[in-house]
């Protein structure tokens, strides 16, 4: 049996408390995973300053080169996994088996991580706005005639990670070349990717002390959030809510990403059908950057029907089917409960499931021992309807009709908004809209992100603060 250990600043530790990772198709154990107790995490975080010094002893440029080597070995190499090794094929199969994400999507996500690592120089350039990395090595430097100094804000970046999609792990990768060790709490079903990333870094020459890997329950995970001076936490509102007021913690909660049509462009909606469909359904609809809303000033029902016809073509397939596009639920009861919840919400007047009519089959599907939810398009006449701004862990979208003048007041917090319009006044309002985090102008998929742009905050600005600094020679 594969046993995934805790990493205590690079050193494997096998706990007496373990959890089983099961193949969602058969229920058979794929591996067991050591679980950390809260005190162990707290104790390790008490020693993190020394680990940070070890990592910081390596220059930033060299760390960027390590990222490049790690990129290749992550995708192509055999890497340690507990007391054995894991091939790239095994990684994909194990990841798929315990999370329900089809192998084809696992591979695509794996490529995202490779890309984020191999292009780390560009990523850092974007995040730092072109600061020479030597400034971080020396603590200060001169660039374009200006003296610059940046102060690191944390000895470790904590991360309480999700299960939903492996690509999300690319977000914390820049911490390593920014010389900040990681204290990672993996998702209960997805330790595979963060563990493999850590091993890829170590095998590429990164000091092992840069990696704390602590599978644990939520209670123990709070130790990471309480003790790291900077952390990111992923999850639903119940998980992230208690931390919203804490400036040390970057929240990655529900995305509620949307496509907004201007009145000038809504008549050409058919031209943008593929952008809408891909925004909703790519990556199994599992990301916070997948669109869960299409907000239009008119022709709402017609657009919803068109989108329903398009998305109804996506059918569940076995996890190893090369054409699979939908992810299975690791807990089948969750799929059933979610579907029932949507049905209950549909009883509130003002919303209709249009995919049900097009498809003629149930939303819940069971194929190859897996339980799926088929894509669902809701036509929502009322922006206040409970389904208008809902986000679920499968391709789910509400098409909401609301006037262009009111739309920005109605959308609520939106991680990514793609605005399809050329109306200059509307664009001006969009640029000033504080509800929108990332704004795409033009027909771009909501789930297309560039790594050199901030995502729910700029990691460099989160980890470093520019400080006032001056120096003169001791002797004239």
């Amino acid at each position, binding site marked *: 049996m594969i046993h995934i250990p805790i990493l205590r600043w690079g050193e494997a530790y096998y706990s*007496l*408390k373990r959890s089983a990772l099961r193949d969602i198709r058969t229920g058979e154990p794929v591996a067991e995973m050591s679980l950390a107790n809260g005190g162990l995490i707290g104790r390790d975080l008490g020693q993190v300053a020394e680990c940070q010094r070890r990592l910081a002893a390596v220059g930033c440029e060299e760390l960027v080169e390590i990222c490049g080597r790690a990129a290749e070995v992550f995708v192509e190499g055999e890497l340690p996994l507990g007391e054995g090794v894991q091939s790239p094929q095994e990684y994909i199969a194990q990841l798929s088996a315990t999370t329900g994400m089809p192998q084809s999507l696992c591979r695509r996500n794996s490529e995202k991580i490779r890309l984020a690592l191999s292009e780390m120089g560009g990523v850092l350039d974007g995040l730092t706005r072109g600061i020479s990395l030597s400034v971080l090595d020396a603590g200060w430097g001169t660039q374009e005639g200006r003296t610059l100094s940046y102060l690191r804000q944390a000895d470790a970046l904590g991360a309480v990670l999700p299960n939903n999609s492996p690509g999300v792990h690319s977000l914390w990768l820049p911490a390593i070349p920014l010389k900040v060790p990681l204290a990672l709490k993996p998702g209960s079903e997805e330790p595979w990717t963060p563990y493999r990333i850590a091993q890829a870094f170590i095998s590429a020459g990164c000091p092992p002390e840069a990696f704390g890997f602590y599978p644990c329950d939520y209670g123990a995970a709070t130790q990471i959030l309480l003790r790291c001076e900077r952390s990111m936490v992923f999850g639903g509102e119940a998980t992230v809510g*208690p931390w919203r007021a804490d400036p040390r913690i970057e929240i990655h909660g529900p995305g509620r990403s949307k496509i907004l049509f201007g009145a000038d462009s809504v008549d050409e909606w058919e031209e943008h059908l593929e952008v809408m469909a891909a925004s909703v359904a790519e990556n199994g609809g599992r990301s916070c950057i997948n669109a869960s809303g299409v907000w239009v000033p008119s022709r709402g029902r017609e657009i919803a029907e068109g989108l329903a016809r398009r998305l109804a073509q996506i059918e569940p397939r076995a996890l190893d089917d090369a054409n699979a596009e939908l992810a299975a639920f690791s807990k089948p009861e969750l799929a059933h409960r979610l579907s029932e919840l949507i049905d209950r919400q549909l009883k509130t007047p003002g919303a209709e499931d249009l995919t049900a009519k097009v498809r003629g089959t149930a939303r819940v599907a069971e194929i190859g021992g897996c339980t799926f939810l088929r894509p669902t398009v809701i036509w929502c006449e009322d922006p206040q309807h409970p389904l208008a701004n809902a986000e679920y862990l499968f391709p789910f979208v509400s098409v909401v009709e609301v006037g262009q003048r009111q739309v920005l007041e109605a959308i609520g917090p939106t991680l990514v908004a793609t605005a399809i319009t050329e109306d200059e006044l509307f664009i001006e309002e969009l640029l000033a809209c504080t509800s929108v985090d990332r704004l795409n102008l033009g027909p771009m998929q909501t789930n297309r992100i560039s790594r050199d742009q901030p995502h729910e905050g700029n990691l460099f600005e989160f980890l470093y603060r520019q400080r006032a600094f001056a120096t003169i020679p001791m002797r004239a």
Partner: protein
Amino acid sequence: MGQAQAATELQSLEARVAAARQRLDEHVREMVHWHFSPETGCPFWLERAAGLGFDPRVEIAGYGDLRKLGYFQDGWLRGGPVRRWLPKAYENEPVYVFETGGSTGVPKCRINVRDFEIDYEQFSLSLSEKGFPKGSDWLMLGPTGPRRLRLAVEHLAQTRGGICFFVDLDPRWVNVLLRQGKHQEMEAYKSHVIDQALKILRVHEGIRCLFTTPKLLEALCEKISLTKIGISGIFCGGTEMDAQFHRFAREELVPGVDFVPTYGNTLMGLALNKPFDRDDDYAITYYPAHPRALIELVDPEDTERTVGYGETGQVMLTTLTKELFMPRFLERDEAERAEPIEVYPWDGVRDLRLLKSLEESVTVGVY
């Protein structure tokens, strides 16, 4: 070990188990007689006896017969009048009332005259002189307030010739903070508690022994080396403890200190851990204070069925003292049934934890 010697020891264990069972049945008869006799029993059981249709003093001949009384109901101890539990024999004695944790609604309460003293006097006999030297002082860092632990640990210290210092901890407030997701406030409260403990430990050099909970021990050890400050024995309990914590405590938090895990509650008293054996993978196996208390593990789907050794079952407590007769109370915990051992020749429970079905609804806090 030769085969003959092994056989002798096996027989010896079997004989001990049989003797313990016989003592239990005798004790059951004695307790039933006490609680169902008008001159000694409490109003609750005397009133209940009237509706049973049989005289328990005649019909109950041993532990197995307790099933004739059904199950002790959780709600009986929640709310008053508390005096219905006071045995007539103790009506002129000073009486304490102790409450359970309160993590599941209105706390259960029970009256107490000397039970906690008896339990802890017995427990004292199991403590080593090296770890818990007589005459040394104690710090009780754990749930105080209406819990029996507060007085019990003090009595333990006094029994061993020591004086006990206290730091107040209100576990119900901790649970409120956890339920509301106020993690920072909880940390602030924990720091407040730990700071008080540090002050006491630094100025009172005679303290050698500590009672605390697993989470408070972790917090304390982040601030101070307990071995360097002279702590030689730690009695740890109050909440569930698993093998991983046990190992972590022995290997990293307090290496070299006599670490004694216990399980106890207001209703049952104190259960002792199997003597530490390095080959046992730090398993936590508790044995109740037989015959005053018993833990039977039953199938949660069919609570009339006792699970086999090594199998998981729901905890069913029975308390048999002159102060409390609590037969067959289904607790919110589960565990694996453990075989009797030489020092405790009756059933034990291994890896005690919250019932799976309740995990989501109960908050177990720092305490």
